[in-house]
């Protein structure tokens, strides 16, 4: 297509075109020719770059930046809008909680727990009460350390506060698992259960964070899991009427106090957390 151009643009005309002194039909003529003739196009390019490339370089940087920058998903943009600093939003967005496998696992677990609860009344309820509050705990355990961040060892050598990162990711975990669990809970036939189990859930998460300033986060999560299961099992055992006792209104203040105490520990001992999920 471009090979058989034996005629090329006159140098003066080219200069005039690039310089803006040639107009009208002649300019159109040049333009149509340039579309098809590589040689003359190259000459036009050369004339343009001679007169200064800073605009072209600037535009290229903008193009490259636009294409290289990871496109933040809706979540990150929402976060920035509610006032979170842009780089915090970036780090939060990289959290595994927002990634599909975690979400899929959460949904699956909840579905199973809800199903179990709706089939078999007492045992099912107990199962739901054990699983639902512990889901965020599992999330926190996965939020940092080797499982969460494939680049954890590199991340461990960075100055960003591990505590801040853990808290950001815990928020991410809570933001994804709690709404799902609340929705599941509301589908259940028991009245009054509603969202009362959120209190032990938050207490468990806070306790896990606090404990992880002493032992590794996975160990902390397991301990909290075992403790909570024991509480629910005891509440369902002889002497009590049903597992719901574990989330009775009367117990809410206890959970609130526990949560606050755990958060105080986290605040004071936060410096002991590091990215490897091991206390230092």
């Amino acid at each position: 297509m471009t090979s058989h151009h034996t005629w090329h643009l006159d140098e003066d005309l080219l200069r005039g075109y690039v310089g803006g002194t040639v107009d009208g039909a002649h300019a159109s003529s040049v333009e149509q020719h340039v579309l098809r003739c590589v040689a003359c196009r190259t000459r036009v390019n050369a004339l343009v770059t001679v007169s200064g490339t800073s605009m072209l370089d600037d535009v290229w940087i903008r193009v490259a930046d636009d294409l290289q920058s990871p496109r933040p998903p809706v979540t990150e943009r929402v976060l920035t809008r509610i006032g979170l600093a842009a780089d915090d939003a970036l780090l939060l967005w990289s959290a595994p909680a927002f990634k599909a496998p975690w979400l899929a696992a959460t949904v699956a677990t909840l579905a199973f727990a809800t199903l179990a609860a709706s089939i078999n009344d007492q045992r099912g309820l107990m199962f739901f009460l054990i699983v639902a509050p512990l889901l965020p705990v599992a999330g926190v355990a996965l939020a940092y350390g080797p499982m969460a961040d494939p680049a954890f060892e590199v991340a461990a050598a960075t100055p960003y506060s591990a505590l801040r990162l853990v808290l950001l990711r815990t928020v991410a975990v809570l933001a994804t698992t709690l709404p799902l669990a609340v929705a599941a809970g509301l589908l259940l036939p028991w009245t009054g259960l509603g969202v009362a189990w959120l209190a032990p859930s938050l207490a468990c998460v806070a306790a896990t964070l606090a404990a992880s300033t002493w032992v590794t986060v996975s160990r902390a999560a397991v301990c909290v899991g075992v403790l909570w299961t024991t509480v629910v099992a005891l509440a369902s055992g002889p002497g009590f009427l049903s597992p719901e006792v574990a989330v009775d209104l009367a117990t809410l203040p206890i959970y609130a106090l526990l949560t606050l105490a755990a958060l105080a520990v986290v605040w004071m001992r936060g410096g002991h957390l590091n990215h490897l999920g091991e206390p230092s």
Partner: protein
Amino acid sequence: MQAWSESPDGELVAALADDDLGALRELYTRHAPWLSVRLSRRCSDPDVVADALQDCFTAAWRGSGRYRGEGEVAAWLWGIAVRRLVSRLRSRPEAVLSPLEEWDGTIEPSAEERVLLGIEYGDLGAALGRLSPEMRAVVQATVLDGLTTKEAGQLLGVPQNTVKTRLHRAKAHLRQDLAGGVT
């Protein structure tokens, strides 16, 4: 690492779908300069031209699948660039460039000019040269740049109906001119 400077334009566009920034860089080197000039001749504001150029290449990256290998890559890129310009001008109507020349109705191209126009367009070229600037502008925008009458209106800063009218009259002039003058 691939040396893209040897590859034809078509290969570069294919590589865009493969996320190859080096290919886009080469395309940019080959086409951004002349595109910027061509855009500047339709818009007087250099910032708008820069924005349109930027939009053009990001759009080329994202829409590389739409180039089917027909026609020159240069023409494909111009099609994207001019539409991006129209898009940017929608919010900046004052940046539109209006035809500059005076027209006294009796312009006769010089012999040299006739040769030039003749080679590119044949008789059509000479006939085009005899149109008024406004009519030539709409012909350029719709026929040469490939815009719709609506887009041409946005580019030239006139209502769409005005474009249609002028185009209609331009075509009538051209038909008359070409039918009447044989040489």
